[in-house]
């Protein structure tokens, strides 16, 4: 029986599997890196070989350029393959398009790295899959009991209700360029919103990629195609960075909304000047973090980043051997944590 600590350790470059000789979501250049998803805090450039799902590799190329690594290996969900002395498989994490949990096995022991994940429904990506294991390496971005998220469709209904109440104002929705923006577009399309959805140019390449992958985002149009003053009553999707820079001021009496898990705490929303907080998150909330820790049946819980202390405390009370890893570098560039830093 292999010990879980033999399968996965922590090095200055991040999580490392000695018997497989690879890193996972390395924070600096390494010979071989397995990537859970394409957010830039997990998918950095500068590695020799990168192993990931096709979508993650495509998005890394879009964001980092074609030369982001020397060698790529595409992995399909559920497909098991050998790396060194271990067997590895990728499983849906439900976080964004192409996101995966990574399972490592040897001699009947299994460690699963969640990357970032969520359990809530998302029409733009494959739903989370529970993979039982001996040690679960979990995120804890929203690892406090104050983060129990409401139904995302009810949050979207708030946006549509506000638009009906203020038909002369432009509703500008802050949403991270990769994942959240496309999810909000798709949710609007699913909700039957029949106006064009306007977007900030920074979202263009990834929206086009999602559309190429067969995800119908509705009638989406770049803001550059219109005169800003004509967009009264319309919905515009913008990056959080653009909102901080006053980009929304070009629209008629703009009403600033933001789609993020941080919006669950009203004080946070006020600090960043949001008028219409929409609690739509691509991360697991507290109930989902706790439920997942139980569902995977792991005796050990390693908490990589986020609000680690409360989750470790809770897991310990449940009889799970839990400890924080506090990996430096995760959560810095993903849209949701970045907003917390700004706040």
């Amino acid at each position, binding site marked *: 029986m292999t010990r879980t600590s033999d399968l996965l350790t922590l090095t200055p470059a991040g999580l490392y599997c000695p018997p497989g000789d690879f890193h996972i979501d390395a924070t600096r250049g390494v010979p071989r890196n397995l990537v859970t998803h394409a957010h830039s805090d997990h998918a950095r450039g500068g590695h020799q070989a990168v192993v990931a799902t096709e979508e993650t590799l495509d998005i890394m190329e879009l964001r980092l350029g074609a030369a982001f690594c020397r060698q790529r290996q595409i992995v399909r969900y559920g497909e098991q393959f050998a790396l060194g002395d271990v067997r590895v498989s990728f499983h849906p994490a439900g976080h964004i398009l192409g996101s995966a949990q990574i399972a490592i096995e040897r001699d009947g022991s299994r460690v699963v790295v969640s990357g970032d994940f969520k359990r809530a429904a998302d029409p733009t990506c494959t739903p989370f899959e529970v993979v039982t294991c001996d040690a679960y390496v979990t995120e804890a971005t929203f690892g406090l009991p*104050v983060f129990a998220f409401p139904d995302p469709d009810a949050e979207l209904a708030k946006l549509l209700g506000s638009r009906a109440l203020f038909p002369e104002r432009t509703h500008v929705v802050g949403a991270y360029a990769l994942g959240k923006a496309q999810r909000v577009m798709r949710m609007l399309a699913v909700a039957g919103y029949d106006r064009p959805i306007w977007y900030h140019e920074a979202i263009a390449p990834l929206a086009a990629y999602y559309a190429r992958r067969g995800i119908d985002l509705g009638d989406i149009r770049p803001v550059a195609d219109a005169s800003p003053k004509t967009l009264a009553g319309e919905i515009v999707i913008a990056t959080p960075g653009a909102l901080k820079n006053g980009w929304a001021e070009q629209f008629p009496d703009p009403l600033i909304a933001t789609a993020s898990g941080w919006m669950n*705490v*009203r004080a946070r929303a006020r600090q960043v000047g949001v008028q219409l907080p929409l609690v739509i998150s691509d991360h697991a909330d507290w109930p989902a973090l706790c439920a997942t820790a139980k569902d995977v049946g792991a005796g050990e819980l390693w908490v990589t980043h986020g*609000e680690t202390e409360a989750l470790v*405390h809770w897991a310990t009370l449940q009889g799970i051997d839990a400890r924080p890893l506090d990996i430096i570098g995760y959560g810095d560039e993903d849209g949701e944590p970045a907003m917390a830093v700004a706040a």
Partner: protein
Amino acid sequence: MKAFATLLDRLSFEPARNAKLRLIATYLATEPDPDRGYGLAALTGSLKFRHATPKLVRVLLRERVDPVLFNLSHEFVGDLSETVALLWPEPEERGDPPSLSEVVTTLETTSRAAFPAQLTLWLDGLDRVGTAQAHHRIVADRRLVTPRQDRARAGR
């Protein structure tokens, strides 16, 4: 109470005077009597409640939530009303949320001894927005930023 709580929540995010007025006008136009009357009284600061203290709510919450998780949460959120709203456990079966007039009339007649049980019953019936606003109004007696106060502030 739910419509009033939603109004307060929205008002607290909306800086523009005319937009605040539209929100209030929509509330007054759609809510029945006597709720909208009490709503107006609450907005103008004319309602006062006895027996309700932050200490009582802290005690009620500590009976329901792990103290370490409460402290970490309160530290993160900063505001007691919001922490209470976010941590108050979901009841197994949510009762009907009280109407604003029910809250006001009951508070006038409830004794100090009976108050904790009454407050618990209400908080069990409210969703998070309602709980936060109930706490703000009943316990914390938080002043609302109404258009009139905005004008006063602008004049300073």
